[in-house]
């Protein structure tokens, strides 16, 4: 069994959920319009992934394998709704920023993907580390995508105007096709980096 450090680092680069495992595409494309959205989505997804991995790892022997998917989905959906309510009540402005992304987390393939592929077979400690690795990897990927799309789409990063007034923003990046194309090229770039690193 790989060491703890390996378990954590694999989520960041080698098995990055967005660029390598190609999971969680829907929120990635829909949300990465700006860097702050990407960050917000990543953080809330990380939190839910952490909680659900812990609970699923804890219950892994009790849930019969035939009904495991409905059971996991129930647990994930509960956490998402709780996060939604608590944020809405106690930190309204944060909730307003993340508002629409939180229901999206329920259908984020990463969480069920990790629960099905990992949390089901490993103990709680490993599941926590895996959740942290995957969650941070996802947040990183989303924020980078958000920065790129915001930089060229609106000429700003995290809302601060960077490109000056002469810059003509590429409107397409804010739309659906822009998201697809940006992520496609990013995947190509990541593959290129992986091939380059391995050969050197």
């Amino acid at each position, binding site marked *: 069994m790989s060491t703890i450090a390996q378990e954590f680092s694999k989520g960041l680069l080698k098995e990055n959920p967005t660029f390598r495992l190609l999971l969680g595409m829907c929120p990635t494309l829909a949300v990465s319009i700006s860097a702050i959205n990407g960050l917000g989505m990543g953080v809330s997804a990380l939190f839910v992934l952490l909680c659900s991995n812990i609970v699923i790892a804890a219950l892994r022997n009790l849930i019969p394998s*035939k*009904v495991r998917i*409905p059971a996991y989905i*129930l647990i994930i959906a509960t956490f998402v709704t709780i996060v939604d309510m608590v944020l809405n009540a106690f930190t309204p402005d944060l909730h307003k920023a993340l508002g629409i992304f939180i229901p999206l987390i329920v259908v984020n393939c990463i969480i069920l993907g990790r629960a099905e592929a990992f949390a089901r077979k490993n103990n709680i400690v490993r599941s926590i580390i895996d959740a942290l690795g995957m969650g941070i990897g996802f947040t990183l990927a989303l924020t980078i995508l958000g920065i790129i799309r915001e930089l060229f789409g609106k000429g700003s990063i995290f809302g601060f105007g960077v490109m000056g007034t002469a810059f003509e923003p590429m409107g397409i990046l804010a739309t659906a096709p822009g998201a697809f194309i940006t992520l496609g090229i990013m995947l190509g770039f990541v593959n290129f980096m992986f091939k380059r690193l391995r050969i050197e």
Partner: protein
Amino acid sequence: MDFVAAFVIIGGLGLIFGGLLAYTAQRFAVEEDARVETICDLLPGANCGACGFPGCINFAEKVVKGEAAVDCCVPGGKGVCDNICEVLGVESVASEIKKMAEVYCIGTKDVAYDKFVYHGVPDCKAAMMYGGGFKACKYGCLGLGTCVGICPFDAMHMGANGLPQVDVERCTGCGVCAKACPRGVIRIVNADRTGKVVLCNSKDRGKATRQACEVGCIGCKACVKACPNEAVVVEDNLAYIDSTKCDDCGKCVEACTRDIIKNAVKIALS
């Protein structure tokens, strides 16, 4: 009231679906031996077909039913075979010979001439459809990388000289590349053999080979005469060296005018 309603509704839905799933699980039960899944997890999962079955799942089913030999999985080698035997509770009969792929052609762009310039689909099989390939030599490697693309273990990379190079550590000898190569340039050999090897695949007579390539084997039998252990034999104008008899003395290399006989032992690629 709110608590009770939520409790009952979600619980009720859970019960209904639990029951429904239980009923369908029974009614549509597929008799499946649990061992199939465990064995399937043990296999490398490359679906390479070296065992003769379409995909690892089929092999796992057949081996559990006893219709397949335990050591069929070539890429898995001894390790996988032992695990399978353990699961099936059978005594392991694994053969320790590790297999490897070898490219029998060193006809790079500058020594092997082209009949015409080919700009079609970058795939050897596609290139073969155009008059049997753009290379003058009918048996040489076309260098378009079908084998590189198809290797399930990423063990085949295109060398700088335009010919594929085998990564000894990664290659499991599954033979997918050998089957894919339209020219039959790749052969599966024992990885641990020593001595010399004739890196050519041309069965043309001497005159035709000379026109097609500067290093092709012309079947002059000089190596056969030079070899003290009769390890070399020439069949339809091509020399083959039997690694069991060859003691690596190197006499054939000196005798060979075409500089086509190389060392069998490969230095690891990466």
